[in-house]
Structures are given as C-alpha cells and as structure tokens.
C-alpha cells in the first residue's frame, strides 16, 4: 500500500496537494467535535425589531407569537 512514490507524485501534482482553499479549511473546522447550531436562537425577537421600532409593540408581538 505504501509503495506509492510520493516524492514523484507530489512533484507532478503540487497544485492538487498544496493548493488549499479557504472554504475547505472552514468546512473542515466545522467537522471538529460536537455539532453546533449557529442559527439565531432568538430570531423571533430579532425579526420583530426589523419591522417595528417600538419596544412596546415588539414585546406585544413577541408575546403573541411565543
């Protein structure tokens, strides 16, 4: 299995081996350890504030939806 001539292969395919992209690193980091929920947990409140400027209105709507 280890009979591959890595030295020759690496020299011929430098880009394949060493041209790593940002997205690959980001994705790889995401696979380390427990899964995380990066979604917004308080999205109801946040959405409400996108549309209503008043704290009082927002609270009423949030309570209604909760």
């Amino acid at each position: 299995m280890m009979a591959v001539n890595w030295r020759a292969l690496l020299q011929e395919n430098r880009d394949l081996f060493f041209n790593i992209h940002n997205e690959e690193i980001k994705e790889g980091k995401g696979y380390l350890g427990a899964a995380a929920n990066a979604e917004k947990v308080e999205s109801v409140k946040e959405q409400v504030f996108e549309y209503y400027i008043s704290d009082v209105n927002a609270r009423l709507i949030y309570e209604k939806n909760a």
Partner: protein
Amino acid sequence: MGHEFIGQLAKNMKNVEYDRVIYNSKNYIGNRNHVWQIDNKKYTPEDVAEKILSVAKANVERFYGERVDGAVITVPASFNHDQIESTKNAAKSAGFLEDRLIFISEPTAALLDLIYEEKLSDKRNTIHDFSKPKKVLVFDLGGGTCDVSIMNVEINGDDYKVEELAISPHTQLGGVDFDICGVLYLLHKYSILNDIDHKRMPHHVDVKRYIFSVLSLEIEKARIMFSSLSSGLTGEGYGDVVYRNSLENFYTGQSFEFEISKKEYDECIKPLLTKGGNLGFNIIDPIIDTLNKANLGKEDIDEVFLVGGMTAYSTVREAIENFFGKKTISYLDPMYSVAKGAALYNYYNENKKKIEKGKIIIYPVVAENIYLDVKNNLPVLLVSQGTKAPYEKVHEGIVKVDNATGIKLDILSGKSIYDPKMKRLKSVQLTFTDIIKPGTPISIKVTFDKNRILHLEAWVTGNFKQRIDVTFDKEVLYDGC
C-alpha cells in the same frame, strides 16, 4: 444525561467520542447565537468558559486551602467588548467577584513575564536590555487566534510602563487551521491510495466528523514529533523527519496506513505563513496591519517576542524571522508566558498601595475604530483605534431622530467606514417615553473602562429623562436579556 469532563481526559476523547467534544469554544465567545447541543442540553461558548474557569478556581482553592474570588484573566488584545464582557460573565458565573476581576491582553501579559524574567536574570547575564524605552512587537499564535501587539516598554527603576501602540484586528487563525491543512493533505493521499475522490466520498456527516477528528489528532502528533526531532535541523538541505501511523477501521471498515514528512507538512501550511496567499488569511497580514496602524516600519521594531504554543514550531518562527530579517525572542515553552504575566500583574496590582517601588502601569488601546450607524446615514466615528483606555467622551447632538417613537442605533467596528470587513457589534434601541419631534438631536456618552469594555449612554439632547443606558449586558433588546 452524562457527566461533564474538562481537561486532558476530554481532549483524549476527541477520537473516541468525537461528536461529544466541544472544540475551540473561545472562538465563538460573545456570540450568543452559537450553541452546541449534546443530548438535550445546550451549551453556549460562555457556558463552556464558565465550566473551565470553575475547575481552575476549585483547583487553586484546594491547593491553597482558602477561598479565591479574584483573578487576572487574559483575553486576546483584539477581543471586542462583547467578547470581553462575555468572558467576564463566565468568570462571574464561575464564582469570581466582578470587582476583583481584571482583564488584560494576552500579549501584554506575556511581555510582563518577559521583562520580569529578564530582570531576574540581570544580575547574571541580561540578554535583552530594557533599560531604555523599546518598541516590542508581540506575536501570539495560539490554538485559535493570531494576535499582534506593538508596545512601548519603559522601565524606570523598578517600575514597568507598558503602553500599547497598536493591536491587530481579531484574526481567527491558530493551531486548528494548521491542523486542517495537514488533514486535507492526508485526505488527498487517502484518495490516491484508494483511487477515490475524498470530496465525493458518500458519507454521513458523522463519518466526516470522525475522519476530521482522528486525522487532526494525527497531525497534531506529527507536529509535536517534528518539533522535538528536527530542532537544529533547519534551512535548506536538512534531513527530513517522517511521521508514520496506521488507523484501523478508518473508512468503510478499511484501515489507513499513512506517512507525512516535515517537508510535506511545511509545504501544506505555507499559505498560512505567506503574505498574500490564496487563503485570504495568514500570519503576516496582521503584522503588516498592526505596523501600519502604529505608523511604523518593520525596521522600527526593537524586539519581536513570540508567544503561544504554535510559535514553538520552527517553521512558524522562521517565517516571522524572515519577515523581520532578525532573530526573535522566544521561550523554551511559550505556552506559559501569558498566565505567568497575568499572575505577576495580579500581585503588583493588589499590592500597589503597599509597595513604593515596582509598579506596573498598562495603557491599553482600542483595536479598531468604533462607529455609530443610524439607518440611512453614513456611520459616525465614536472612538478612533489607538484611543487609550480608560476613556470617556460626550458627543452632543451627534445624530438626529427620524422617528417619533424611537431610534435604532447600530454600533460597528472596522478600519474605516468603507471597510468590507466592518462588523456590527450591537444594535440597541432607544425608545422614547414621550413622542419626540423628528429632527431632534440625540447625544451619546461613550466610556471605555480599564478592561476595554464599551459603555454607551444615549439620550434626547436637553432631555435627560429620555435616555437609555446601553452598557452591553443590560438593556440590550436583541439578545433575550
């Protein structure tokens, strides 16, 4: 519900119960939307920090046989106030008292340790002379962050004065990125050996978690071996060191026998060490950025001090030395400098009233410009980068009301108003108790405390009753507070 473990045992479980280990939680602290769920329990980054600090506190108390309620805790120089505030909340939950907590930047702490060690050795043979003011660049590359600070160090008798001149933007680049580069490389090798494209390997996300977890541990082991066996073997023409291992039941029941040499690994991590690499981030860019902020060239730096576990790796150290064209200062074990410096600062700070000599004065600065943004307007500069903390300023009538019932204020940070990486730190809402005429001016008071935590107060100019205190863990309307 299982038991929680914190420490080396947890680390050792990375390849056994890989999907039940929380990694790199510090990278997400201050972000309340990042939540890990294991069984049915949710963990925020702040919860994880609290648990780690609780264990640390319990151990100190057991060792000394008395209650400990104060500490100096270090944070990256580039942490923003949300990140510092969240760390502070974790420490409070762990049982530390708020007024006995001090946060100093990691590079500053490391520098204090360096000065102290040099001072201890001055009777024997001083290597680095701090008797005259010096500009020191501290490069701190740890597990998850790359922090650069330029500081002016002045020693007057027994007093130390450390003035931060500029600090880098928050750069999430550390050991984990170096590991992933090696992991991707090994996956390429696996693809060739088995004649498949690893990117197209059909598998469940759990399989990917397993693959990345075990390979990242292998790369970490390889790097430790390269560090221990290749010291002294540097430069072109040195002999190579090879790490070999075999992983049973790696994928679809098959084992994976592999090898990686130091030269191969160094080639893999090259983009992380090279300015303008294709990744969009590397260790050189934050150095250049910080030099620019301080209006200094690399030749103006008297000493370069390396801190953090990753700087123990010779290839990283060589990249920095090549950039500066000179030798750097580093310790045999750069992992302990930061904690030692923090303990030293704690001692001097607690005893400053009692002792006449030997004071440590630190002048921390703000890492990036802080802007206030009101909908449909250009952001207004509130605090410039480099402003020394503590700081207080009132901006009278800085913005105008465009709505009769309230105004939404966005707090942003970045290099300039055109910075594409501008971050929204917080959104706050000033709701008026009485209806206000549109066009009425709003005043803002900005305060930075010694821990670099930002506090804002906003009020209708001339009407102090219509105000909001936007100290960030209170009155913030978004985050469920």
